[in-house]
């Protein structure tokens, strides 16, 4: 039987992650073979979270993790991938300062663990209160989505890293649950994973009800808020579920005023709908720390677009007069 295979490439960030996603082989979910670039591995936290999530469903004796030779292998160790997979890395390293600017891989299965991570993320990433605001927001909304909609037995896998060169925080949050299509299809009939992703990113659309305004517990706003945070940050946002991926592309710094759209396909984006099927949902996001638009100003933009979207959704359900 063919094993699940993952190759940790030389480089996989949100801008060029498509090749990594295409390289998955998920033939046999009981065995996992991990190989890696021999010279240098530089990967987004999303990649690490995906490997951890996939590996966690496989018992350690069924994981064949090729001995790492890349000079950057210490990064993989330090982010806790071997520990998460229940493997010995064989990599010895001198621990540097305990609070470097990263959040190692964590599995979050309940509210208490989420609260703990939200508290820890501020000192771990050395964030000011203003910088922390959107990061905490993203983490809470995405992990709660996993709790409420994914039916993933292992909860959410996440990690994050600060990149000094670009002054960005990069975050990956992944689950191995039912995926977006199944969740959205509970209330809408979608023909594909991509269509389900499109609806999930549209404000006011939730899989829990067709009712405008949502249920007492869900409004269908979370992913739209998060995409908007990435857009205003002029950075990447990737969401991958089933065989489809939607990627919000970077906005040019030359563009003075950023416009938000209720339809994610109106944003500058790329899509794939022929990827190896990811059983669950994987989200990656980059947030620039500087220059930063005030979170409260972002909320003004969101309010305007959200209200328009709700109004349009209502109008789309108006019955028309019948003239005979």
């Amino acid at each position, binding site marked *: 039987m063919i094993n699940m295979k993952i190759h940790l490439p030389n480089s996989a960030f949100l801008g060029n992650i498509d090749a990594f996603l295409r390289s998955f082989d998920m033939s046999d979910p009981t065995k996992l073979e991990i190989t890696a670039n021999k010279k240098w591995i530089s990967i987004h936290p999303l990649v690490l979270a995906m490997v951890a999530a996939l590996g966690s469903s496989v018992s350690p004796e069924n994981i064949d993790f090729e001995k790492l030779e890349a000079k950057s292998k210490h990064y993989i160790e330090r982010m806790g991938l071997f520990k998460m997979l229940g493997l010995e890395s064989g990599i010895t390293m001198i621990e540097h300062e305990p609070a470097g600017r990263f959040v190692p891989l964590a599995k979050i299965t309940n509210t208490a663990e989420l609260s703990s991570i939200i508290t820890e993320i501020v000192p771990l990433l050395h964030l000011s209160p203003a910088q922390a605001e959107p990061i905490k*927001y993203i983490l809470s909304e995405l992990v709660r989505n996993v709790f409420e909609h994914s039916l993933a037995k292992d909860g959410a896998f996440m990690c994050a890293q600060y990149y000094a060169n670009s002054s960005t925080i990069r975050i990956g949050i992944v689950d191995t649950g039912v995926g977006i299509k199944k969740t959205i299809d509970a209330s809408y009939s979608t023909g594909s994973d991509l269509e389900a992703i499109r609806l999930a990113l549209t404000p006011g659309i939730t899989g829990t009800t067709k009712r405008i*305004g949502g249920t007492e517990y869900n*409004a269908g706003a979370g992913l739209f808020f998060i995409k908007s945070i990435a857009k205003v940050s002029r950075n990447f946002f990737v969401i991958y579920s089933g065989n489809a991926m939607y990627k919000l592309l970077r906005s040019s710094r030359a563009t003075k005023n950023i416009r938000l759209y209720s339809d994610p396909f109106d944003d500058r984006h790329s899509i794939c709908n022929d990827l190896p099927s990811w059983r669950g949902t994987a989200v990656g996001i980059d947030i620039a720390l500087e220059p930063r638009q005030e979170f409260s100003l972002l909320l003004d933009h969101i309010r305007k677009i959200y209200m328009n979207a709700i109004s349009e959704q209502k109008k789309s359900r108006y019955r028309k007069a019948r003239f005979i």
Partner: protein
Amino acid sequence: MISIKLFPMVGEFAENKDAAKEIRLLQIVPALDGKEEVVLDFEGVNSATQSFIHALISDLIRKYGNEVLDRISFQHCNETVRKIIGIVVDYMQEAE
């Protein structure tokens, strides 16, 4: 009038929707049903998610109508919390 202090229950970042639902069902709804006015006191709460505010108040607007907003006041809200409450209040009224 009943004042409900949120900080001791939800902390400085109000994101726990289960806590929001519990506050709504166990404190706000009984107060409203008892013809009381309710003050939601956000002192110490620095930020909130839209999901939290939605779980806290959306069903009140749906069940009691938007007149319920004449009986609920929001106190000690910073700019972020104010705006998130504003978004939820607006879209719930637009939706109904």
